[in-house]
């Protein structure tokens, strides 16, 4: 039986870091679209979504840093950890692929992110609740944007339909991880601090299903889930992404702009 009224500082640190890592990695992926978007408007949209995410990541890293036993700051957490120390979901580190791949990854994450944040606003940790309440306003617009593209490409030409369908199928195995709690999720839930991941599944399923129907796309059959991101088991994709993202601060430590 647990008699402590609040989670341990180290649990809260790890839990906050996970959410920060999701936002940071997805931000980095989206910013790789800069100057490569299908048109100027999309170039700007994807990088603006990235900007929201880095803002959210900063709030979360700053909070994580304040909970850490070691003397660290937000930059240390973002730039000085190696791939195996990152606890983001595998979904967000998936490569950009073509525009359909990016939109599929984005929509499936946005739909989950929105539900996750909705619950997190109810957290008994006031900082996490405040960051969630702030972020949710932004993520609503992310979700609008990605939903619109799923429909437009799915219900578009024969080619756009096929590419959207293939893109959804390709990232689908990585979505299951969003709903599988580990021991840390379980403890945070019991304290009323964290989100009930299993409870998000039903709403996510029905929202995604109805959008896919509108987009004339079929929902992939649930296959074997690919998991491990939260435990630091990442594909080489993340290593490459981090190498690019971290190279400057690592080659010039403590440098200021």
């Amino acid at each position, binding site marked *: 039986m647990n008699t402590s009224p609040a989670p341990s500082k180290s649990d809260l640190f790890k839990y906050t870091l996970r959410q920060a890592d999701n936002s940071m990695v997805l931000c980095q992926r989206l910013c790789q679209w800069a100057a490569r978007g299908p048109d100027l*408007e999309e170039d700007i949209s994807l990088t603006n979504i990235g900007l929201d995410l880095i803002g959210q990541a900063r709030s979360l890293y700053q909070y994580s840093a304040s909970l850490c036993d070691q003397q660290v700051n937000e930059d240390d957490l973002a730039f000085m950890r190696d791939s195996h120390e990152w606890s983001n979901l595998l979904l967000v580190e998936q490569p950009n692929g073509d525009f359909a791949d990016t939109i599929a990854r984005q929509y499936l994450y946005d739909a989950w992110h929105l539900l996750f944040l909705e619950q997190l606003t109810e957290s008994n940790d006031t900082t996490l609740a405040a960051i969630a309440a*702030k972020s949710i306003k932004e993520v609503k617009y992310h979700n*609008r*944007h990605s939903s619109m593209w799923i429909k437009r490409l799915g219900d578009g030409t024969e080619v756009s339909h096929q590419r959207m369908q293939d893109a959804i199928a390709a990232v689908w195995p990585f979505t299951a991880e969003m709903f599988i709690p580990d021991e840390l999720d379980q403890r945070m839930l019991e304290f009323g601090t964290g989100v009930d991941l299993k409870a998000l599944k039903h709403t996510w399923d029905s929202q995604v299903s109805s959008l896919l129907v509108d987009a004339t796309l079929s929902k992939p059959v649930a296959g074997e889930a690919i998991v491990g991101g939260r435990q630091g088991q990442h594909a080489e994709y993340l290593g490459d992404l981090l190498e690019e993202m971290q190279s400057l601060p690592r080659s010039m430590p403590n440098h200021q702009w």
Partner: protein
Amino acid sequence: MRLINQNTESELSRVRSILDTVTDPEIPALTINEMGILRGIEIKDNTVIVTITPTYSGCPAIDHITDDITKVLAEHDYPSTRVALVLSPAWTTDWMSDEAKEKLRKYGIAPPCKTSLLDDSQEDPNITVIVACPNCCSFNTKLVSHFGSTACKSFWQCADCLEPFDYFKPI
């Protein structure tokens, strides 16, 4: 050094009027007060404590605003300033006054509608919100892109005067 009166109404209103010269660097037509970014002013032990909140999490203007506040107060004999950043309650476009929204329109940006008018179930704002062209006031407008020149705006075009324009998204 001038002795600063603690929290007296006259001292606070002096600080407030100085801060009325600080504008949002991304929308210079509006002050941080009109934008609802300025949340509070307090004076404690000769230090002015200014509380602000970011519009968006990733708003790059916030560091700029922090520097501007410190600088303008120093120029007006307040050498010690602390700028505190708060996230809660989360910033909303509903904090912009009607006058502020009118200034925005004159500046060429369509002002945000009340957030209570939003329907989150619709991904197309054309369905629920009619955005008037800030140039010719026509309602015959169309969303071009969900994100405009900054994250806080979407990009529209007027079908009557054909001008493209930014719409400040309600959040």
